[in-house]
């Protein structure tokens, strides 16, 4: 079966006067229809850059993109702006961390939704839009009166739900959540994640969750991709990766994360800092912080290799079949 999104060897570099920051380097992964992928890593690891680059919303005159990202047979990296605009919202939609800040404070939610709807369906009638919005509002457990409210009359959680409703207006095939639940309270975050997962059972939707919170991935995704310093270091099923992380960075992330149940192990941080991405190290990017670093790690860059359980790991110390 053809993949919904097939990213191959995607690199994104921010161009500066003095130095070029290689924020994403040779990322390759695929997502199937109806799948959900969590993209995790610490801040500065390039997870947002990767997604925003794919969606072509980075400033084009100050970045350089190579590689390809095939979405339903079209290469998102090379198609024209007009073509990209046709895909946006109808096929691909994004929910940002503070999506509620994008709402106009002086217009009612309903008016704003109508405007947004008509950008892609200019001839839609008011009743049609109203019906569609009501259907979506019910899906995220919101009362109908929201349609007539102003943004200041609602809480952060409700506004974030409105943002999700807006992103779903045209039933996109691919939905990207960029830290969409990070700023919310525990209960609100739990509710929204539950609603999103339940929604996926009723409508066909593929989802990418960008987050630094492992527990969000654990509770709402099927697959996980771990990024470090612009590179994908481990990709696999959530069940495999979080239960038994193989890459030392994933292991480090997991052991620095507190769990709500089970034994209280000592929390351990990962020592050191991210390498300077304008001059990435020749060997493994994680070598300087890795507890198991060897001579080979410093000189030779590890490639993603496939493990028996289907996941891919980029580490010299973890064996496995060479990919491709």
């Amino acid at each position: 079966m053809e993949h919904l999104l097939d990213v191959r060897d995607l690199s994104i570099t921010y161009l500066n006067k003095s130095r070029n920051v290689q924020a994403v380097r040779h990322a390759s992964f695929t997502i199937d229809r109806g799948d959900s992928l969590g993209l995790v890593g610490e801040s500065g690891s390039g997870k947002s850059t990767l997604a925003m680059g794919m969606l072509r919303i980075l400033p084009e005159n100050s970045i350089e993109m190579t590689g390809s990202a095939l979405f339903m047979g079209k290469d998102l990296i090379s198609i024209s702006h007009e073509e990209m605009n046709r895909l946006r919202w109808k096929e691909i939609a994004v929910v940002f961390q503070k999506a509620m800040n994008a709402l106009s404070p002086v217009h009612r939610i309903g008016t704003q939704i109508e405007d947004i709807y008509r950008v892609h369906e200019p001839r839609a009638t008011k009743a049609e839009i109203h019906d569609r919005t009501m259907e979506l509002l019910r899906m995220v457990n919101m009362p109908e009166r929201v349609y007539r409210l102003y943004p200041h009359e609602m809480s952060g959680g409700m506004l974030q739900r409105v943002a999700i409703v807006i992103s779903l207006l045209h039933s996109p095939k691919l939905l990207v959540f960029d830290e969409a639940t990070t700023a919310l309270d525990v209960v609100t975050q739990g509710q929204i994640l539950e609603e999103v997962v339940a929604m996926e059972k009723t409508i066909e939707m593929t989802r990418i969750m960008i987050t630094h919170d492992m527990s969000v991935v654990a509770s709402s995704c099927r697959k996980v991709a771990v990024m470090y310093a612009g590179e994908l270091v481990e990709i696999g099923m959530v069940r495999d990766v979080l239960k038994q992380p193989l890459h030392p960075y994933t292991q480090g992330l997991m052991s620095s994360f507190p769990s709500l149940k089970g034994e209280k192990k000592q929390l351990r941080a990962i020592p050191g800092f991210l390498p300077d991405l304008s001059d990435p190290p020749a060997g493994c990017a994680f070598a300087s912080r890795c507890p198991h670093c060897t001579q080979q790690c410093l000189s030779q860059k590890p490639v993603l290799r496939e493990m028996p359980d289907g996941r891919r790991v980029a580490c010299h110390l973890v064996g496995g079949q060479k990919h491709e």
Partner: protein
Amino acid sequence: MSDKNTPFLTIDHITKWYPHNDGRIHLFRSREKRSWVKAVDDVSLTMNRGEVLGIIGESGCGKSTLGRILVRLESPTSGDVLLGGRSTAQMLREDRKAFRKRVQIVFQNPFDTFTPRDTIQKILMRPLRNYGIGASDEERLAMCREALEAGGLHPTDEILKRYPHELSGGQLQRISIIRSMFFKPDLIIADEPVSMLDVSVRADIINMLLDLAKKNNTAVIFISHDIALTRYISDHIAVMYLGRVVEYGRTDDVIAGPRHPYTRVLISHCADVDPDQARDSLPITGEPPTPINPGPGCYFAPRCFMACEGCRAAYPGRVELENGHYVCCSCIREE
């Protein structure tokens, strides 16, 4: 000064009400008729020397206000805090500096904690000079170096010359902890000390704070919305909702066997890192309301899945369970 029976810290019926401006003139209205934001409403807690008390709750539940009252950045509307049996209000009146030496705070945002125009050396030397610690500047500088070295910040000479914007959030938060620990305080309030930091450095900062606290026998009040993290580090947990403590007990008792419906909802909505743990979230309706004139019944009753008639009549009293664990809920019977 304090005998065995008085706990080290007693928070005694602390209340903090802010006047709520509803657009009307209040000049002739009595105190009772005005509308108030009850940020902290009748909170009583005790803790022992060297313990870690976690305070958890959603945003707006008053946990930060409580922390600010404890260091007296805010004064309470009523109630008092006793430190070693002595009233802090009185201590503050008698000798402000002596009180400040005993109680310190670490703030949430390390980027806002420091004066941006001073070097780290200036920032660290100022409190030492103000409180007359060390005989000379050389001695004080040596103390700063030693503390930075112990906190894992090297090279110390380099760090001392830097300005706050030249350091990372993790480094700044370490310096903030070092500074608050200079006087070996009896009590330290950590108000969400790691929520602004990256996951990979959080553990280090927490471990550093706890190590220093253990060394100086400092009591720590850890204010956080991260329940899993609080579980790891605190001995006792107090759960707050709309300015009130709804449940208190030993950490394991509260997390593994929460009794108050709010705590149960809160914990059931927490995502775990283990994907096999099936979450069955308890139902909760509505959004957290604002604490403007709540009541008269249980504040949580409108959203509670267990609410009954009795809940709406009066605010429920404490129900004592084993090991000092208590809940404020009228639907729970004493065992």
